[in-house]
């Protein structure tokens, strides 16, 4: 062995140790934090504690929407086909079919009820691979009542800030509109786990409790809502809005067909399929999203414009011979009224009078006036998916039919609320409210206030009214006419007359080219100090007077009179 060989060996030994030390330095000094983070990720499993969603109450503090525990039956291993079959017979509940394509854990049945859940838990040892999973679900104790105001929730489809996978989010209605207040903040829990994922202990010091969602107090009066729904029970497709004319708050809102938000996302998805397959779109909130021709209710608008513009006054009379001839077209009235003044024109809903008034005003003046009175634009109600309806102006006709390529007759149609015009029930209710309260047009709203769990108010729903561009005299005139509609012997709304409370209203019949006409009725009560304004539209219901007016009367009697202390109905 030579000195150079010795040096060679010592060098090799040295190099080996230098190499190992460099690597150590790299791992422990340079990349230390990264590896430490990885060791923490290894050791610590993050669990999310779902925040309970905020509740909803009506204006009287009655609980409308809350959360409850739901038990799901979950299959953890696929090997137990026979077991599931036996269970199906034993429990007599529908279970999802188990086949080779499923991946575990597999939910056999949702919301199995506490009895079934405890049965499974008790027989735990005989049912290997089966377990009961507890989830918190949204609970709508009133079922379909006011479902469009509440809306429904569903699992988030993609992860966004502030959410955890599997979180629920409001998809429609108040649930959607006030999502940020309702959702709460998920808590976190850290578990120390071993290499097999078994939890060793909870890291208490790092646990963050969930912050529950805030409670929403709606402007709804659940009593009125229920009354309205029960009075409308026999009609399959209809919409109704009741508003407090004093502040614009929505007292009740009905849209039918409705849905049960408890069941929207139930599995199997038959309910959802039923909802989406229905030709009447039960998920559609007709009260704010459907436009209807208002029919004769619109006469109030046209008369208001006529009075304001000085085109007519109370003493202006016109002749009704069962209709009005314009050029080579005859516009029919529903009756032969003879010589009528303005009041009679409204009370008896004479079309001929309005045709002549409409002819004098012309499309543009009617349209501009209607726009100023809050039609043709969003009311700004705090619910998603509101639609503005349509007020056809001359520009609109020009763009639709070509410039000047449309007849003057559209003004006549428009003046009786037929033709292309579309208004939403909530727009009608708002306009009637404004007449009832003396001329203040409120933005309708459904949320009165939002309060956190400690009672601090986070949000207050209010509406700044704006004055209608109508003189007090015009408004008083229209109010008086509306009283006549319901209370005069010849009034079209006579079926809405109440012996307990003075109601003012206006009937309408919206022509429906695809079937029977829609019945429309708008009203407010009590006449002197109005506390409720209402718009009711019954699709294919027929005439507003005989069909919709009595419904409104019963609703008002049951609601207002009880409040006034009149028990004897």
């Amino acid at each position: 062995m030579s000195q150079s060989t010795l040096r060679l060996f010592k060098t090799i030994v040295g190099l080996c140790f230098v190499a190992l030390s460099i690597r150590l330095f790299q791992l422990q000094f340079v990349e230390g934090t990264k590896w430490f983070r990885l060791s923490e990720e290894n050791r610590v499993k993050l669990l999310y504690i779902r925040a309970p969603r905020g509740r909803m109450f009506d204006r009287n503090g009655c609980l409308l929407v809350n959360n409850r525990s739901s038990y799901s039956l979950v299959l953890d291993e696929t090997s137990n086909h026979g077991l599931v079959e036996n269970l199906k017979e034993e429990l007599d509940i529908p279970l999802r079919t188990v086949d080779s394509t499923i991946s575990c854990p597999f939910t056999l049945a949702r919301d199995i009820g506490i009895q079934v859940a405890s049965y499974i838990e008790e027989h735990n040892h005989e049912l290997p691979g089966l377990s009961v999973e507890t989830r918190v679900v949204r609970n709508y104790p009133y079922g379909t009542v006011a479902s469009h105001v509440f809306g429904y929730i569903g699992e988030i489809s993609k992860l966004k800030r502030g959410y955890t996978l599997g979180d629920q989010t409001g998809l429609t209605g108040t649930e959607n509109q006030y999502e940020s207040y309702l959702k709460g903040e998920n808590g976190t829990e850290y578990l120390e786990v071993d290499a097999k994922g078994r939890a060793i202990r909870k890291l208490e010091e790092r646990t963050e409790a969930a912050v529950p969602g805030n409670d929403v107090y709606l402007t709804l009066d659940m009593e009125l809502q229920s009354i309205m729904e029960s009075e409308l029970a026999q009609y399959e497709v209809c919409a109704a809005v009741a508003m407090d004319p004093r502040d614009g708050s929505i007292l009740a809102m009905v849209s039918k067909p409705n849905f049960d938000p408890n069941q929207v996302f139930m599995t199997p998805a038959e309910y959802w399929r039923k909802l989406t397959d229905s030709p009447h779109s039960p998920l559609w909130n007709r009260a704010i999203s459907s436009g209807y021709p208002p029919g004769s209710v619109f006469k109030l608008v046209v008369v208001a414009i006529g009075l304001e513009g000085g085109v007519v006054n109370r003493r202006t009379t016109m002749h009704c011979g069962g209709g009005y001839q314009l050029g080579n077209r005859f516009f029919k009235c529903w009756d032969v009224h003879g010589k009528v003044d303005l009041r009679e024109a409204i009370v008896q809903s004479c079309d001929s009078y309005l045709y002549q008034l409409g002819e004098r005003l012309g499309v543009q003046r009617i349209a501009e006036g209607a726009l100023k009175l809050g039609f043709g634009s969003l009311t700004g109600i705090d619910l998603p998916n509101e639609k503005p309806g349509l007020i056809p102006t001359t520009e609109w006709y020009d763009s639709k039919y070509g410039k000047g390529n449309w007849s003057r007759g559209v003004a006549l149609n428009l003046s009786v609320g037929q033709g292309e015009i579309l208004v939403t029930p909530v727009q009608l209710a708002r306009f009637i409210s404004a007449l009832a309260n003396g001329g203040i047009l409120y933005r309708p709203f459904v949320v009165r206030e939002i309060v956190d769990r400690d009672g601090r108010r986070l949000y207050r729903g209010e509406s700044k009214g704006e004055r209608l561009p109508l003189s007090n005299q015009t408004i008083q005139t229209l109010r008086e006419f509306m009283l006549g509609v319901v209370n005069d012997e010849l009034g079209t709304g006579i079926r809405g007359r109440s012996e307990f409370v003075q109601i003012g209203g206006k009937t309408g019949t919206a022509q429906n080219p695809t079937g029977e006409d829609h019945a429309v009725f708008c009203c407010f009560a009590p006449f002197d100090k109005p506390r409720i304004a209402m718009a009711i539209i019954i699709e294919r219901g027929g005439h507003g007077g005989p069909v919709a007016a009595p419904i409104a009367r019963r609703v008002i009697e049951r609601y207002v009179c009880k409040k006034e202390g009149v028990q004897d109905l």
Partner: protein
Amino acid sequence: MQEGRRAGPLDLWVVAALILLLVFGSLIVYSATEGEYVKRHGAYILLGGLALLFAYTFHFRNFWALSYFIWLGSVALLTIPLLTHSQEVFARRWVDLGFIRFQPSEFAKIGLILALARNISAKQFDPRKLKSLIAPIGIFLLPFGLTVVEPDLTTALVFCVILVGMFIWRGVSLFYILILVTPVLSVVLSFHHVFWGIYMALLLVGLLVLRRSGFQIFSLFAMNSIVGVLNPILLKDYQRSRIASFVNPSGDPRGSGWSIFQSKIAIGSGGILGKGFMMGTQKKLAFLPAVHTDLAFSVVGEEFGFIGCVVILGLLFVLILRAITIASCARNMFGSLVALSAGLVLLSQTVINVGMNLGLVPVAGIPLPFVSYGGSSLLVSMALVGLLLNIHRRRFDY
């Protein structure tokens, strides 16, 4: 002799490093097994101490005289598991006598070292003649082959290091050593086409730079090519997957790549000072498989940090360097080669084990000397230290 007296009969560096390593190792085994195996580990240390004392006191000439018998005995031991055990992987590494279980490949190290040292140190051995290499290669091949068949490739690799180290020490020409070494490298690298290609290119360039003759270049190159092409047919699936997972650890998160990754996490997360004795989360929560044996070093890294690792490596470095120094001043070539081999065994085991823990080499089932739990390994490593001390004591005896 005066100098000898000054140095004293006992190499205190070796003894001190050994004791510190054993103490540190016991702590690690205690931590890794939550105290469960520490008593047995202590018993193994005592047993190893006896082996050390025996190797230290036994007259060195007797080792020379008995070397071929010891070699024969160790080869016989190696055949036992092959004959008794089934095809079960890893089971054939063990001889089970009912009351005790041991790894014959560990003991084969001693047999191989003594027999090779005796043969290579002989006067007839001429490092310039290829003929002289035949006998030592024969002595090497038998235990090597049996160990490969077991299969315990890592220990077989240690055998290679012993053989090649002794040849170099004895002055065997570079060409012969290349003939021995390069085909093995070729086999290992041929798992990866690119690596193998680079290796072959480097080999060619190296040979040209060293101005080897055309015959040498051709023969070496041809040998390397042949084994490189044949290799995929000869290696077992799990061995291939181990190497594949080393090349691409993320491809097999729960396989052997997983344990390398977890051991890197353990060591890296230890940082400079470590998480503290018994506080390693990687170890505690079972993210590290075989944590008390092959991955013991990752516990050092996790719980004692960079400081602890450097201490362990430093102690091993002292031991190994002392072994080579002792080899260089041994009384005769036999002692010199034995001392050198002891150092090389410790070096190769340290580099492979720590390198594996650090993710530098593929997963290899080999313990870290003096630190890992395991009777056979501890016994043999301590016996090697005993031989080392023996050679050191007698370095001036004539």
